[in-house]
């Protein structure tokens, strides 16, 4: 009985921390895809760059982990504005195939650059001693780092929820997601909003990459390795639906963790099984309330 309790506790704790990191990375993509209608396959590259940057700041610059994560996210957010102005502006009106081709090209550039600067191997992220320790929660012991990930992610998600739901900026973003032309005609500077949202999305990806690096190790192929997982979260969340991302990512994290713990040999398929079932059952997104046609 204690064994089962501890298994359930493990699935919840580890599934939630894993799912929340996915949520951080995926939120950005859901926002950019929903708002800008760009199939942005280069999203994982921003997460990778964030991770490499923060680890570099820690290892080479001696910066403490929390500060390095924050600095890397900000730098990537600023950098992404340049990328958006240079490449993405041309994609807003381009057909989807061209969007896919260009953004996947950006992935290859990122992979090449990361290999060139950091080598083809894993780039190890040291965990500060105060996060490496285990704490015993009675039924299950968990690494402090995982708890920190949960806390930080929840904080950021709460802030995002507040921004989307309670601020003018959030209202503008939601308006632009729903109807771009209409939003523009009410005087919202959609082009500036796009840059801002793109920076926000990329910054969040970088945050996920940096914060999650001790869990999802950095390697040059990172942009592709986690793209599928993130796309699954995006597909199940529905277009531009920020609130459901968290729910879906948690579900994905818990299903993956439970799969590995309970059906280890089948765990590679569990996530796809979930995807198939949910895509048939709820094609528009898991938590989307269906609109009247």
């Amino acid at each position: 009985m204690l064994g089962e309790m501890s298994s359930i506790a493990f699935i919840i704790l580890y599934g939630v921390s894993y799912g929340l990191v996915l949520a951080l990375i995926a939120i950005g993509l859901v926002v950019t895809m929903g708002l800008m209608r760009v199939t942005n396959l280069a999203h994982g590259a921003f997460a990778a760059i964030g991770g490499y940057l923060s680890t570099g700041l820690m290892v080479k610059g001696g910066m403490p982990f929390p500060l390095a994560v924050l600095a890397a996210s900000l730098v990537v957010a600023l950098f992404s504005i340049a990328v958006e102005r240079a490449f993405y502006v041309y994609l807003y009106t381009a057909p989807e195939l061209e969007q896919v081709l260009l953004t996947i090209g950006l992935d290859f550039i990122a992979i090449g650059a990361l290999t060139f600067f950091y080598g083809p191997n894993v780039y190890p992220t040291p965990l500060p001693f105060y996060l490496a320790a285990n704490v015993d929660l009675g039924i299950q012991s968990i690494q402090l780092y995982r708890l920190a990930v949960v806390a930080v992610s929840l904080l950021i998600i709460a802030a995002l929820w507040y921004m989307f739901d309670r601020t003018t900026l959030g209202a503008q973003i939601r308006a632009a997601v729903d109807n771009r032309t209409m939003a523009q005609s009410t005087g919202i500077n959609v082009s500036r909003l796009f840059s801002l949202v793109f920076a926000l999305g990329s910054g969040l990806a970088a945050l996920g990459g940096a914060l999650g690096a001790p869990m999802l190790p950095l390697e040059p192929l990172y942009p592709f390795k986690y793209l599928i997982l993130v796309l699954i979260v995006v597909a199940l969340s529905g277009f531009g639906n920020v609130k459901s991302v968290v729910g879906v990512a948690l579900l994905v994290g818990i299903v993956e963790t439970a799969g590995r713990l309970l059906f280890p040999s089948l765990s590679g398929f569990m996530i796809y099984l979930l995807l198939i079932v949910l895509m048939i059952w709820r094609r528009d997104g898991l938590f989307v309330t269906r609109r009247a046609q």
Partner: protein
Amino acid sequence: MTRALREAAWTLVLSGMLTSGSIAQETIKVGIIGEFTGSFATSGESYRQGIDAYFAKNGDVVAGKKLELIYRDAAGKPGDAARLAEELVVNEGVKVIGGLTLSSEVAAVAPVMTDAKTPFTSFSAAAPGLAAKSPYFVRAGQDVRASGQAAARSALKNGKRHAYTAVSDYVAGQQAEEAFTAEFKAGGGEIVGQDRIPLSTVDYAPYAERIANANPDVVQIFVPTGAPAVSMLQAIGARGLMKKIMVIGTGAEAEDNDLHLFNDSIDGYYSVMYMTAQLDTPLNKWFREYLVGKFGAEALPNPHSVGAYDGMTIIARMIESQAGKQFDADAAVASVLGYSFEGLRGPMKINDDRELTQNYYLRQVQKVDGRLENVLLETFPNIKP
């Protein structure tokens, strides 16, 4: 005047070409197919280092002929490896091919080599039964089953009786697991749990949790080098298992050149391998110092650089056997059967089935002078898969 000058110049050029032609040494070409780009690119880099050291130690002249190496990049694709092998034999006229990191590449190249009657050796492919795929194949790496067996013996010898196996779900991992399981059971041990982990796994914490819940006293690991190995071993370390039970690797998860990728939670990790960077023989010591001196502190010997060096020894032996004759592939392969020599990894012998008899080493990661190092604990001599 100008005409006379021009003629004189031509004469000079022509005579220069003729003499250089007659002085130039005869060369013999060897093809090296490796991974120089893509996700296995670190192995290609190690091949270059091992070969570089081989030439530094032995020179590049074998039986009066200069060895000319022609590198090709298969980038982890068996189909490309087969095409490149054909191109090397047909267009470049190579006599022997070396390299071939992946067993799938060896399998793809084998029929080409059989048709072209060209000997080939793999510096690191580890699947069993590769020799059956072509009569021209000679092993220079290992058969992974021997690693599994040696690990099981190490565990039994250390008084372990309850084993858990956690291997990546692909051929090499499965073979290592089966070999370990058979040997461990034969020695009176009991298997308390077995996991085959999909290669796509990113978060390994659930597997560490499963291992902890099964309460074994030893766990066999086989996970590919790089991100999977780092994630898996750090998950095990974070779960506090590294100090509590014997965690023993069989798949080059944490060779000395990779130890800088890990945090200190790997301290205490056991592993079994057919080479070891800290092996205390004059040849290996020279090799280690040469690599570190030339390629930097992290370029410690690993299975790929050691395989390349020892593989070059085998290739040189084949070429030497054909000195002064038309190169005959069958005779070249026959010449290395029963060949015993001192490799970087210690004494080696090529058996009649073109597989190797070699030592296996039980190591443990320990902090030596503040640096993580695979410390040699025990040698299992002359293991034959």
